[in-house]
């Protein structure tokens, strides 16, 4: 469970989030929508512990994220899966190595790496392309590789910011299907997107942000801006 309680956050150039109150139950699939700069990315940055709120509490599975010390944050992040808009794949590593990287740096055993990496690659449909380098993949495949890296350590929560930003419609929906599959396995999925078609097609909970506030929170939402 994720709880935002009275969260406020401002940067030097202005208020970004004010009075955010949200509860996300385990296994939900939530889409954050809103114009650029309304605070979607800031919500994600708070969630991964990269920023701390000015006030309020952020509780993720019983853990007070805003109170985590710097040395605890890495261990907290291992419980999350994060996918970025720009993929952030390592160009000198193959698909397999990119996906395994999460496990390597968090100290998993080689046995576990051999077991989990093919599973994750299979889940995103990249089986057979393990030895390719990122530049040998299409944009959609790169995105899938990034998802595989985010889920390989089997986090309960998956966060994806502007996931389908650069992809065309068919690829975008393929990516969404993968996320739905991950969601069906019982994981919480939080995404932010600009893609109207996707939001309308998903039929999942939609949170609309405006000026750093939650403008709408609909259980089965549509893209309405």
């Amino acid at each position: 469970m994720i709880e935002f309680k009275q969260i406020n956050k401002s940067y030097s150039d202005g208020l970004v989030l004010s009075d955010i109150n949200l509860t996300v139950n385990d296994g939900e699939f939530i889409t954050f929508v809103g114009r650029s700069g309304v605070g979607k990315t800031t919500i994600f940055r708070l969630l991964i512990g990269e920023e701390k709120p000015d006030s309020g509490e952020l509780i993720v599975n019983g853990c007070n994220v805003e109170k985590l010390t710097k040395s605890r944050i890495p261990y907290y992040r291992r419980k999350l899966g994060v996918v970025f808009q720009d993929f952030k794949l390592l160009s000198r590593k193959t698909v397999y190595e990119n996906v395994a990287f999460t496990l390597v740096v968090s100290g998993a055993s080689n046995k576990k790496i051999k077991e989990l990496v093919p599973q994750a690659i299979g889940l995103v449909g990249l089986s057979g392309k393990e030895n390719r380098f990122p530049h040998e993949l299409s944009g959609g495949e790169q995105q899938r590789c990034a998802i595989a890296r985010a889920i390989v350590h089997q986090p309960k929560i998956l966060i994806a910011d502007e996931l389908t930003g650069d992809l065309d419609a068919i690829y975008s929906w393929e990516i969404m299907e993968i996320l739905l599959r991950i969601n069906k396995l019982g994981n919480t999925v939080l995404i932010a997107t600009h893609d109207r078609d996707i939001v309308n097609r998903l039929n999942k909970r939609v949170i609309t942000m405006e000026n750093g506030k939650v403008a709408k929170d609909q259980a089965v939402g549509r893209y309405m801006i």
Partner: protein
Amino acid sequence: MLRSLFRVIKFGFMNFWRNIWMSFATTLIMVLTLFSISLLIILNLYGDLIIENIKNKIDVTVFFQQDVSKAQIDEVQSALSNMTDVDEVKYTSKDEALKEFQSKHGDNPLILSSITELEGNPLRDTLVIRAKNLDKYNDIKIFLDNEKYQPIVEKFTFDDNKEIINKVSSTLSIAKKIGIGVSVIFCIIVVLVMFNTIRMTIYTQKDEISIMRLVGATNAFIEIPFIIEGMLYGLFASVISTLILYPIILYTTPKINEFFQLVNVDAASVINKNLLIIIAVQLLLGIFLGVVSSAIAIRKYLKV
């Protein structure tokens, strides 16, 4: 834990190999630094050796009057031997001295004939006195200047090498100062160069580092590979420096022995005795400089 340790070491090696030319240049500068410091140590060892050798050659020779009896000489000898500052007193009778002289100049008939032309033995009974310490010769001089010995002692010569010693040690101390100056400058250069190299490694890996952070690598896991990279420069440089140094030592020690006419001491054995220390100093200093430069670069460019 052990697994992570193994992995960070592997990452450190990868950092090193990835930028092999820059690593090579950095290692080379580290070699220069370690090499100059080793030379400084060796200079120190040689310097001590040379001064010690000159000191060994210093002695006071007492020449007795012609008619002095053996008993009188024995008395002086035992008095000198009882002095705490005296290391050794060696008696040479005039007959022995003559024999030695003759054998020494046996191939020179002119000198031999001039000796025989003189009536009797022109040489004197002598005592050669060696002090335990360079500063004690003055006490021996004062002792011999005593009125009691004046009638029997014809003269005594103080083979004063003090001036040479002063010259040698002042030359050595200048050389040492220059050596220390050069070494310090090299140390600063090596830290700057290594700092820059590691900064470049951090820069070229910023994507990797940001991903490491986001997927939950600990700070130690991110930082240690750079520390290891720094240590590797020190390790390789000390090995290379030793490989260059050893042949130089082998070549120079006989020359040093010969040039300074070292007696009882051997430059090679002194160096061999200290070789492990020299290698250890290089290794530890190299690793220390590597770690320090990495730590500065990490502190400055790896915001964690």
